[in-house]
């Protein structure tokens, strides 16, 4: 088997957790390991590393489901979503969509219908942890603009700020389970809007008002100050700047 074929067959066996008979024929037994055992060691290493990575990114989901079930779910995810980048910190971004689907398909997960959104919240927390540190908003730059220039200004969100809206009380669920105070057996269905922000090295998750999310959504979509004023959503801008959620402007 040539080097390229060997590597391709090898990697397929790792993500699918199956062994390839032709590949095993290329191996020699060692003093203590048969070819099947040799490939199993690498399969276990890869699975363990990726399961550990997912448990680290999604600790609250793991707590709610229990470690054994979470590990099985992670194994299924790894089979469907092998890592496609060298940076392990970038792995696991599709877990939220995966878990949402599982919650619709697996009867034992029907009561955990909110888990997809909770996973999304945990992914944003992870992203915020590794995001660039914010710069300080420069009021002088804004003040020097003419009135028409100010109207066409687009505000920039801090890279370490994220937000999301859920049909479920994910902020409350996250906080309760993060503190290990209780398990969620019954979740009332009401909307919660989450903000995630890193200040210095501290990340906080908090609830946002509906109007704040509307304004932040317009800013994220690149709408101008004029558009915010027209939508009557500009009144929170000073507060956003003061909190460090907005870091700059562009024309």
């Amino acid at each position: 088997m040539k080097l390229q074929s060997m590597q391709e067959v090898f990697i397929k066996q790792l993500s699918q957790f199956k062994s390839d008979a032709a590949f095993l024929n290329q191996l020699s037994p060692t003093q203590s390991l048969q070819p099947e055992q040799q490939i199993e060691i690498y399969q276990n290493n890869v699975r363990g590393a990726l399961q550990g990575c997912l448990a680290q990114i999604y600790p609250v989901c793991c707590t709610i489901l229990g470690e054994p079930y979470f590990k099985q779910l992670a194994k299924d995810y790894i089979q469907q979503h092998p890592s496609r980048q060298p940076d392990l910190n970038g792995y696991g971004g599709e877990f939220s969509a995966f878990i949402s689907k599982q919650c619709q398909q697996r009867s034992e997960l029907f009561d955990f219908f909110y888990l997809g959104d909770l996973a999304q919240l945990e992914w944003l927390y992870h992203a915020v942890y590794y995001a660039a540190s914010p710069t300080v908003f420069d009021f002088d730059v804004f003040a020097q603009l003419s009135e028409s220039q100010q109207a066409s200004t687009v505000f920039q969100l801090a890279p370490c700020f994220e937000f999301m809206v859920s049909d479920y009380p994910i902020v409350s669920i996250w906080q309760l389970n993060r503190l290990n105070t209780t398990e969620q057996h019954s979740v009332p269905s009401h909307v919660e809007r989450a903000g995630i922000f890193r200040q210095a090295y501290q990340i906080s998750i908090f609830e946002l008002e509906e109007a704040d999310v509307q304004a932040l959504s317009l800013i994220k979509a690149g709408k101008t100050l004029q558009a915010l004023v027209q939508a009557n959503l500009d009144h929170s801008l000073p507060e956003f700047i003061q909190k460090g959620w907005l870091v700059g402007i562009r024309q």
Partner: protein
Amino acid sequence: MSVLSSTSKERPISGVGIGLRSQHTHEILTTLPDIDWLELLADNHLADGGQSVDQLDAIAQHYPLTLHCVGMSLASVEPLDLAYCQRIKRLAKRVNASWISEHLCFSAALGVYSHDLLPIPYNQETLAHCVQRVLHIQEILGERLLVENVSSYMTFQNSDMSEIEFICALAEQADCGLLIDVNNIYVNHLNHGLDGEAYIDQLPIDRVQEVHLAGYQQQENFVLDAHNNPVSEPVWALYQRLIERQPNLPTLIEWDNDIPPLQILLDEVQKARHIIQRVKEAKT
């Protein structure tokens, strides 16, 4: 020798260091323990921001640093990930890393990354590929790469060279440096019957620029290079054999899993220093 610069001349590395892990970063920054240098797992510091990135600047002010990579997929037949290599180069510049090292293995194929150090057959086809790959990486980095021997749990029928023959040929043909992990030699001795002493004796010592020491974990029918235990006595013995060939080899204590209090690593640093001292005294 090559026109490539071998290491940063500004911050030469010597003595015994440890691999920097996030669990110890705050303590190191606040107590500045007696460690000669630190090695960064480069892949943990490639993000745009966050605590680990910000703390690097402070760490770099106090300790010489080296970069240890796991993502170059040195032996992979896939196209080289140029963006990854450039990120490593930028990180090395940022922290003024004295050198960059990577493992002799592949980790990716078909666009899938294993995040593990996967073994390769030792033969002419693999050698020719690895030589070209290392040369390309060195061209991008603008400096000589250190290539590390890995522990392995697999034996390929189409290997027609020993590991040490392969490494010697690679170092010579690619004009690269070597990072010798003594624990990996011992793990391969236990799993494959490799002669660790002969391996040490055959190393092209002038190309060895760094030594790694770590602990392994006994499994039911093999040993795992788990980096979760103190350095074992047989590994210390092999290390002494290597140090007797070259007493001034920068040495690193690696501990990646079940990470203990920093003091445990500092104790391991002292053990390595004692061996170096003993060997130097015996030579004078």
